[in-house]
C-alpha cells in the first residue's frame, strides 16, 4: 500500500453514513469520522490498516494490539499530529491560525484586559474577549465561556481571552513575551461580594451555605436478618419521604455506634486533586467552511457525540457568527485519557476559535502548562469516616461523609461523588451504614471522571479504618477482612444485590500465602540493617464498573470476501478495546474481525430507537432506557464485548445457520447456535453428523442468496441484560438485546440498516435496580511492601502484589498492562502527585512535570511487582471491566504498610517525605 507524503496510507474515503441533529428547529448533518478511516484507501476500519494480517493469533486471540503497528512506527493518528495542510485534499486552506487561550489566574479581582503593549507590534495577535463572543452556553456549563471584562472569574483557568496568531511562528515568538508574564493579564479591584450559588436547581443545591453540584448522594441502610432491608436507598429511595427517613435512621446509626460496646474508629483523611497527565496535551484543528457551511473539527475525545451536541447548542445563538448545516468531527486516537478527555472543555474552546476565525483554519494545541492549568482533574476530597467493629472483628456500622472539590464546572462531579458513596462500603457486608457524598462548587480547576471515578478516595477511608481495627483486635489484615467480605447474595451499602461471585476469599488467601507476607519478618530484619523500616500492608477494593444503566451498540458485517467487520460507538483510548472487540466475533463466528470501526456515533441514531422516558420496554417496541454512553475504559470487557458477541450470535442464527441447513439438507430451523462449532475456519455440527463447511463458502452463499449480511444490535444492562423476543421468518428468537437492525446483501452500505422490532421483552430490570447504583464489580486486593527511611522520610514501594478477579481474560497482555499502569499511577497518587488548590497550584500557569512528579520505573517495584488473576470459574462467566480496579486499593495498602513499618498512620495523601517526617516526630 503506498504511503503518501503526509505519512498516512492511501486516499481519502469519506463516504460515510450520516445522521442528523435537530438544533433550534434546524437540521444539522453530523459526521463523526475516525481519522484512520478518513485516510484509509479501502474505506474500511478506523484502525490503521497496515499490517492487519499480523496482529491476529487464532480466533479469539490477539498477537498484539490491532493499533500497535501504527503506534510503533510513528504514523499520524493523534490529533496533535495534524495540521490544516494535511486536509488540503479536502479543500481546507493550508494556512492555519494558531490559537492561545489566556486564562484566569486570579479569581478575586476583576479582569480588565490584556496588555498587548508588551508585545512588539508584529507579534500582536487579534484578541476576542467575552464581549465579542455571541454564543449560547452549552447545556452542561453554567458559568460564562469567557470571563467578561469588568468581572471576576468564576474559577481558575476560566478563559479570559482567545488570541489569534497568524502563524505558529508568530505565536512562538510572542510566547517569549507573554508566557509566565504576570503583567500580561490586567486585573482591577478586588470583588468582595460573596459568591452566590447559581439559581439553577438542575445543577446546584444550595445547602447549608454550600453550593453543591446536584444530585446529592445520600445512602442510608439498615439491614435485616432476611433478604429485605429494613431501610435502604434501593428499597426506599423512591419514597417521597426518603430524605426525612434517612436522617432518622442516620441518627439511629450514630446513636447505636456511640451507645454500643463496639470498637469505634474515627478517621479523617484528605487527598489533593490529581492531574491525569495523559501524555498528549489536548490538541486539535478546526475549520469553518463558509461556502458549504460546514464545521470541521479534528481532535481526540472520549465523548465525540456529546461534544458535538454541546458545540451545536452553543451555536444556536441568533448572533453566532457561524451557522453550520454540517459538522464533521474527525476523531483521532487519544494520547491517553483516563477520563480527562471525557466532556472536556477543549472541544468547545476549539469550536469557539473556529467560529471567530473568519473562515481560516485554527489550531489549538495546549502546551503542558496550559494542560495543567485547564485540564480536568481527579477531585480533591475531604472525608470523615466512623467504623464500628465488634469484638469478633465484624463490622457493625459505618458512617462516611465525603466532600469532593468539583471546581468551577459541574461536569461529572456529582456522579463521581455518587459512585464514591457506593464504594465507601468497600468489599464488605455492613449491616448499618450512613453515607453522604457531595461535590461542591469551588473556584478551583474543574474535576472530572478520572480513573477510579471516586473509588480511590472512598476505598482509602474504609481500608485504612479497618486496618486500625485489625491491629487493635490483634487480627491479621486478612482475617479481619475474611470475616466481613461480601459474597454472592450480599448487599451493598445502597441495598443492591451482589449477583456475581466476588471471590474475595480467594483474593485474601492468595495474598496471605504470598512471600511478601510470609517472609516479611526476614525482610524487616534485612532492611533494618540498611537503616530502613520495612512493612507490608494489605487492602482490597470492590470497584464497580459501568454506570447505573448502560446502553451499548455493536455491529458485525459479513464481507463478500469472507472476512468480518465490527463497528462500535466506543472509542479506544489506548485501553485496547479495538483489539478486544476484534476478537469478540470469534465465539460465535469462528474468526476475528479484520476490519474495526471504533467511535462510530452513527450506529445508534441509525436504529430509530427512542429513550423517551414516557415509554417502557413493554409498551413501545422501540424503547430503551439509554442510548450509548461515553467511552470509559472499564466498559469494554463486559459491556461492549456483549454487544459484539450478541451481534455475532444473531448473525450466526439469521445468516449462517439457514445456509448451513440448506447445504446439509436439514429442516429449516433445526440448527441452533449451541449445536454447531467452528474449527479451523469450518462450521461443524457438534455431533459430527455433517461434513464441515468453510466459512468463506457460507458467507459467499449468504451474499449470493441475498440474505442478511450484517447485524446491528442495541443492548441495555442494569443488573441484567434486557432479553427480548423476536419473530423473524416465522421463527422465534430470544436474545440479550433490545434493538435489532439488519443489512441485506446488495443493499447500499451507506443506507441505515432495516429495523426488526422486537415482539416483546422477556426480562427487563426491576424498578428497584434503578437505585442499585452498580451491580458489576471487579474485586481486587493489593499487598504492598514499603521501606520508610526515618532519616529522610522517603517511602519506597519495594514489593507489590495485585490479586484480581477479572473473570475470563480476553487478552492477557492488555489486562496485565492495564493493571500495571493502574499500580504505577496509584503509587504516584500515594507518594508523589500533589496539586495545591487555588493560585498556589497549576492555576498559575507555571506547573509542568518538573514540579508535578509522577511515578517512574524506579518508583514502582519494577522487578518485584506481580499480578495474579483468579482463574475463571466456568465458561459462562463474564469478563469484568478492570481498567480502574487494581489501582483503587493501592493507596490504603501503602498507608497500611507504612504503619506496619513505622507505626505512623498517614491520612493525608500523598505521603510525602515532609509529611512522613512530621508524623515520625509526633
Amino acid at each position: 500500500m503506498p504511503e503518501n507524503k503526509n505519512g498516512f496510507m492511501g486516499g481519502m474515503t469519506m463516504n460515510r453514513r450520516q445522521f442528523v441533529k435537530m438544533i433550534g428547529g434546524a437540521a444539522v448533518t453530523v459526521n463523526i469520522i475516525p481519522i484512520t478511516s478518513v485516510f484509509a484507501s479501502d474505506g474500511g476500519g478506523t484502525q490503521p490498516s497496515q499490517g492487519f494480517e499480523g496482529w491476529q493469533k487464532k480466533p479469539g486471540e490477539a498477537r498484539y494490539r490491532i493499533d500497535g503497528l501504527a503506534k510503533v512506527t510513528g504514523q499520524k493518528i493523534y490529533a496533535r499530529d495534524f495540521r490544516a495542510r494535511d486536509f488540503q485534499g479536502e479543500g481546507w486552506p493550508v494556512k492555519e491560525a494558531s490559537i492561545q487561550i489566556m486564562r484566569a489566574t486570579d479569581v478575586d479581582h476583576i479582569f480588565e484586559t490584556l496588555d498587548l503593549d508588551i508585545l512588539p507590534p508584529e507579534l500582536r495577535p487579534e484578541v476576542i474577549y467575552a464581549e465579542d463572543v455571541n454564543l449560547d452556553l452549552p447545556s452542561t456549563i453554567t458559568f460564562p465561556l469567557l470571563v467578561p471584562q469588568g468581572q471576576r472569574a468564576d474559577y481558575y483557568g476560566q478563559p479570559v481571552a482567545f488570541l489569534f496568531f497568524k502563524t505558529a511562528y508568530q505565536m512562538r515568538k510572542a510566547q517569549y513575551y507573554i508566557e509566565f508574564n504576570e503583567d500580561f493579564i490586567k486585573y482591577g479591584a478586588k470583588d468582595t461580594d460573596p459568591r452566590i450559588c447559581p439559581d439553577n436547581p438542575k445543577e446546584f443545591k444550595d445547602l447549608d451555605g454550600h453550593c453543591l453540584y446536584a444530585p446529592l448522594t445520600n445512602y442510608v441502610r439498615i439491614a435485616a436478618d432476611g433478604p429485605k432491608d429494613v431501610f435502604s436507598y434501593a428499597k426506599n429511595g423512591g419514597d417521597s419521604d426518603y430524605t426525612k427517613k434517612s436522617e432518622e435512621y442516620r441518627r439511629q446509626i450514630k446513636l447505636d455506634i456511640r451507645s454500643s460496646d463496639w470498637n469505634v474508629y474515627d478517621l479523617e483523611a484528605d487527598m489533593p486533586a490529581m492531574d491525569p497527565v495523559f501524555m498528549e496535551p489536548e490538541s486539535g484543528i478546526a475549520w469553518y467552511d463558509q461556502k458549504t457551511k460546514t464545521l470541521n473539527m479534528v481532535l481526540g475525545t472520549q465523548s465525540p457525540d456529546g461534544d458535538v451536541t454541546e458545540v451545536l447548542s452553543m451555536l444556536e445563538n441568533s448572533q453566532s457568527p457561524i451557522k453550520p448545516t454540517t459538522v464533521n468531527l474527525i476523531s483521532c486516537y487519544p494520547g491517553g485519557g483516563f477520563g480527562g478527555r471525557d466532556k472536556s472543555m477543549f472541544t468547545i474552546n476549539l469550536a469557539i476559535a473556529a467560529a471567530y476565525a473568519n473562515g481560516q483554519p485554527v489550531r489549538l494545541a495546549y502546551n503542558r502548562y496550559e494542560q495543567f492549568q485547564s485540564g480536568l482533574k481527579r477531585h480533591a476530597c475531604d472525608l470523615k469516616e466512623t467504623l464500628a467493629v465488634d469484638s469478633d472483628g465484624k463490622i457493625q456500622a459505618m458512617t462516611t461523609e465525603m466532600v469532593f472539590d468539583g471546581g468551577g464546572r459541574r461536569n461529572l462531579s456529582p456522579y463521581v461523588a455518587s459512585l464514591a458513596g457506593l464504594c465507601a462500603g468497600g468489599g464488605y457486608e455492613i449491616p448499618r451504614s450512613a453515607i453522604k457524598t457531595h461535590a461542591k462548587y469551588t473556584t478551583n480547576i474543574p474535576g472530572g471522571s478520572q480513573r477510579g471515578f471516586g473509588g480511590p478516595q472512598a476505598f482509602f477511608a474504609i481500608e485504612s479504618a479497618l486496618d486500625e481495627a485489625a491491629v487493635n483486635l490483634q487480627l491479621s489484615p486478612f482475617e479481619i477482612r475474611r470475616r466481613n467480605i461480601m459474597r454472592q447474595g450480599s448487599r451493598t451499602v445502597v441495598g443492591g444485590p451482589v449477583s456475581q461471585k466476588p471471590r474475595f476469599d480467594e483474593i485474601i488467601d492468595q495474598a496471605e500465602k504470598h512471600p511478601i507476607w510470609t517472609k516479611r519478618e526476614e525482610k524487616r530484619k534485612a532492611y533494618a540493617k540498611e537503616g530502613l523500616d520495612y512493612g507490608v500492608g494489605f487492602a482490597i477494593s470492590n470497584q464497580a464498573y459501568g454506570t447505573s444503566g448502560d446502553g451499548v451498540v455493536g455491529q458485525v458485517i459479513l464481507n463478500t470476501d469472507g472476512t468480518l467487520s465490527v463497528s462500535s460507538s466506543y472509542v479506544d483510548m489506548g485501553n485496547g478495546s479495538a483489539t478486544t472487540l476484534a476478537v469478540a466475533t470469534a465465539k460465535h463466528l469462528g474468526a476475528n474481525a479484520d476490519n474495526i470501526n471504533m467511535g462510530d456515533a452513527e450506529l445508534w441514531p441509525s436504529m430509530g430507537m427512542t429513550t423517551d422516558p414516557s415509554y417502557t420496554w413493554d409498551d413501545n417496541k422501540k424503547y430503551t432506557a439509554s442510548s450509548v454512553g461515553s467511552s470509559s475504559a472499564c466498559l469494554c470487557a463486559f459491556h461492549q464485548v456483549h454487544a459484539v458477541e450478541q451481534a455475532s450470535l444473531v448473525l450466526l442464527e439469521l445468516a449462517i445457520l439457514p445456509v448451513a441447513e440448506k447445504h446439509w439438507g436439514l429442516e429449516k430451523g433445526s440448527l441452533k447456535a449451541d449445536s454447531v462449532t467452528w474449527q479451523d475456519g469450518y462450521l461443524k455440527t457438534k455431533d459430527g453428523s455433517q461434513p464441515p463447511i468453510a466459512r468463506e463458502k457460507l458467507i459467499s452463499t449468504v451474499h449470493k442468496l441475498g440474505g442478511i449480511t450484517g447485524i446491528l444490535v442495541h443492548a441495555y444492562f442494569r443488573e441484567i441484560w434486557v432479553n427480548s423476543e423476536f419473530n423473524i421468518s416465522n421463527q422465534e428468537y430470544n436474545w440479550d438485546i433490545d434493538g435489532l437492525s439488519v443489512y441485506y446483501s446488495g443493499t447500499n452500505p451507506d443506507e441505515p440498516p432495516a429495523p426488526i422490532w422486537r415482539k416483546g421483552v422477556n426480562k427487563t430490570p426491576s424498578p428497584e435496580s434503578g437505585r442499585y447504583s452498580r451491580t458489576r464489580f471487579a474485586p481486587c486486593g493489593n499487598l504492598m511492601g514499603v521501606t520508610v527511611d526515618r532519616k529522610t522520610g522517603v517511602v519506597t514501594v519495594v514489593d507489590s502484589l495485585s490479586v484480581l478477579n477479572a473473570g475470563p481474560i480476553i487478552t492477557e497482555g492488555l489486562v496485565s498492562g492495564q493493571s500495571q499502569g493502574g499500580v504505577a499511577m496509584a503509587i504516584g497518587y500515594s507518594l508523589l502527585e500533589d496539586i495545591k488548590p487555588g493560585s498556589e497550584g497549576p492555576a498559575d500557569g507555571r506547573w509542568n512535570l518538573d514540579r508535578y512528579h509522577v511515578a517512574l520505573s524506579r518508583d514502582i517495584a519494577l522487578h518485584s511487582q506481580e499480578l495474579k488473576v483468579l482463574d475463571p470459574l466456568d465458561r459462562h462467566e463474564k469478563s469484568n471491566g478492570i481498567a480502574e480496579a487494581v489501582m483503587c486499593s493501592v493507596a490504603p495498602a501503602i498507608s497500611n504498610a507504612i504503619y506496619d513499618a513505622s507505626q505512623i498512620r498517614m491520612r493525608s495523601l500523598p505521603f510525602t517525605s515532609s509529611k512522613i517526617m512530621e508524623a515520625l516526630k509526633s
Partner: protein
Amino acid sequence: MSTVSFYVNQQLVTVNEDLFEMPLMEYLQDEMGLTGTKFCCGIGVCRACTVSVQRQPDSPREVMLSCSTPLSQMQGVQVDTIESVGEPEKLHPLQQAFLDKFAFQCGYCTSGFLMAAYSLWDRLKRAPINKDDLDRVIENAVGEHICRCTGYIRYHEAIKTAIIEEGGMVS
C-alpha cells in the same frame, strides 16, 4: 545570514538564523511533517520527544531531547526519528518486541522509549555488556521516561527480550 545544516533520517536540511531558536521537535513536526516525535512536557522531563543522534558519522548513538534542543545546536548532527527505524513490513526487533509484549497502550510515549532503546541498541552492538548488568543499563537508558498507561514493566521486558534474542550484545 548564518545557517545550520544537519541530517534528519539521512536527509540534509539547512536552516537559517531566524529559526535558530526553534526547538528541533517543532522543526521536525511543523517543517518536515515528521510527527512521530512527540510533544508532551516541552521541558525535557518526560522524554516523549527523544530522538537518536550521532554527533559524528560513526560515533555511537546518543539520545537528544528534541523539545528542548534549539536548532542552533544542530550543526552536523545526524538525527534519526521513529519514522526511520523500521517499516511496517520490516520492523526493527525493538519495535516487534514492543508489539509482542504489549508494551504500550495509548502509544504516545512509544516513540521516546523506542528511540532511547534504539540508541542503547547501537551502543551495545559496539560494546557488549555482561548480562547481569542488562537491567541496570536498560534502567539507565529509559528510566527517566514517563509512561502513564502501562507502567513500565512491559517496556523493560520488551527491550530486554529484544536485546537478548538479537544476540551479540550481552555475554
